[in-house]
């Protein structure tokens, strides 16, 4: 039976933008897949989120609203979402590829749940006849794969900030569903969320990233990188080399074993440009490289390069930018 289920994510009653992108894409694919588009929302006291989804253009909204769903658990959210997909008879499931969404999409695809084909972190979804063909990066973006599903159910997680979030609007009914497990029976669940260090942006989400590598010379050598990041309201990034040296925390690492970023401006200072680093930042809109070595591979992917010492160039760059403001 056809149809698309979109498992949305909300926090504090507000549906995440990445989920609206997934829902909008589902509505665009409705004519290919056939059947209805069902939006599913989970949490506690989520009437507002359910109402927003009902007005989005979805054909129906299913809400799981119970205290033990207030914070995420792989187990609990998976059981609810899989039941909603079965009840809707959907053949396709869309989930936003956030950290929570990627856990959930994998869990519902597993052999114990929907036993589905799963395409993670999709950057494009094409149609071929009645089929969906998913495009997704592999090897952290060193290669791009296109896949189609050979199982009865196809689960796709959609990379945030890629798909258009324009929704047609509408008025759907909201059905309240009962979670298929006893309240309080979950064996692993989130008990608290602490906000990250104040004032510092996450490298994966920032519009501008200023990254430093071994060329900084020492942990203290990151001062000009941090100062420029602050002036630009940017996140600080780091190469694997300096994370492995213990100069910077792993949360800042950009690359294949760190984060894949695509900001509008990426400044690489004192980074030579190892293949695994380039994989993590090559989709940035504009790349600026500052390096003492004119033969550094980073200059091959950079739009603009300055050959020089970051300790001299970055402070001058910061002053020039502040003078503009």
């Amino acid at each position, binding site marked *: 039976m056809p149809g698309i289920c979109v498992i949305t994510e909300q926090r504090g009653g507000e549906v995440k933008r990445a989920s609206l992108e997934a829902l909008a894409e589902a509505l665009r694919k409705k004519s290919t897949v056939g059947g209805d588009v069902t939006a599913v929302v989970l949490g506690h006291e989520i009437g507002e989120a359910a109402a927003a989804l009902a007005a989005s253009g979805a054909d129906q909204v299913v809400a799981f609203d119970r205290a033990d769903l207030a914070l995420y658990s*792989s*187990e609990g959210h*998976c059981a609810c979402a899989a039941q909603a997909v079965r009840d809707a008879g959907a053949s396709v499931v869309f989930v936003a590829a*956030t*950290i929570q969404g990627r*856990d959930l999409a994998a*869990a519902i*695809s*597993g*052999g*114990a*749940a929907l*036993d*589905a*084909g*799963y395409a*993670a972190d999709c950057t494009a979804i094409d149609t071929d006849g009645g089929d969906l063909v998913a495009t997704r990066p*592999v*090897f*952290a973006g060193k*290669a*791009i*794969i*296109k896949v*189609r599903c*050979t199982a009865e159910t196809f689960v796709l997680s959609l990379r945030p900030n890629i798909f258009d979030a324009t929704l047609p609007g509408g008025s759907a009914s909201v059905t309240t569903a009962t979670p298929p497990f006893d309240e309080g029976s*979950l*064996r*692993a*669940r*989130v*008990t608290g*969320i*602490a*906000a*990250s260090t104040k004032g510092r942006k*996450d490298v994966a*989400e920032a519009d501008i990233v200023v990254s430093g590598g071994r060329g900084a010379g020492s942990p203290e050598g990151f001062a000009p990188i941090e100062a420029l990041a602050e002036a630009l309201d940017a996140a600080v990034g780091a190469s694997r080399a300096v994370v492995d040296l213990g100069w910077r*925390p792993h*949360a800042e690492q950009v690359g*294949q*074993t760190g984060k894949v970023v695509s900001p*509008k*401006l990426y400044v690489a200072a004192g980074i030579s440009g190892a*293949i695994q680093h380039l994989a993590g930042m090559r989709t940035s*809109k*504009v790349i*600026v490289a500052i390096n003492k070595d*004119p033969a550094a591979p980073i*200059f091959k992917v950079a*739009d*603009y*390069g*300055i*050959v*020089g010492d970051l300790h001299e*160039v970055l402070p001058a*760059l910061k002053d*020039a930018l502040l003078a*503009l403001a």
Partner: protein
Amino acid sequence: MNAICCIARVPDTATRIKIGPNGKSIDPEGVQYVINPFDEFALEAAIQHKEAKGGELVVMYVGQDDFAKDLRQCLAKGADKAIHLKIDGPLGPQGISSLLAEKIRPLMPASVFCGKQAVDGDVGGMGVMLAGLLDVPAVSKVSSLELKDDTAVATREIEGGVETIDASLPCVFTFEKGANEPRRAGLKEIMAAKKKPLEVEEVSAPAPKLSVESLELPPPRPEGRIVGEGTEAVAELVLLLREESKVI
């Protein structure tokens, strides 16, 4: 309680990817294969679990190719036994999790330790799928783990914050880089590991759930330019960022 550590064999992250002649997989020529980097942290956590709780620590690998040298490394670091489930074709996370679940069930109760994703396919699904099949809870992307008597407390970095997760044991954990300090094996341990059991078992791979249409390299970035040298080039760079690319 036993501990299972699942490892994957992946191209080293320094590998320049080339597409094979079929246009659907990489060209393995000249590629150096290593233990998936995230699995190193899973192995360390599994060793710490064994040290704290006793039981047996079994390392499992599902794959087509020989990986004995790396499995011996795991034995040298502290695993008691290694099992290679040898398959006859490539497999996605569904297939791998179902083969592993079958092998792990007789060893239950056991907590399972994996990397958060393999750095080749970048799916990040095998661990949570395995948890479902074993009917145990799952905590993915663990950035720190504290084992208690019958429970564990993990943290996970999410967008703009850090979650704390309480889990009852046994549980499946998938690990982020930096969750612990993986140990190195000494010469004595390396010698002792040669006597530890390493089993290779041929299994048939379940049918995959996705079919590959194509594998391609991303389009190259347009050629950039060197603006100049040192601080003298800064003014022009600012002009280019403002006027040409309009990003500031």
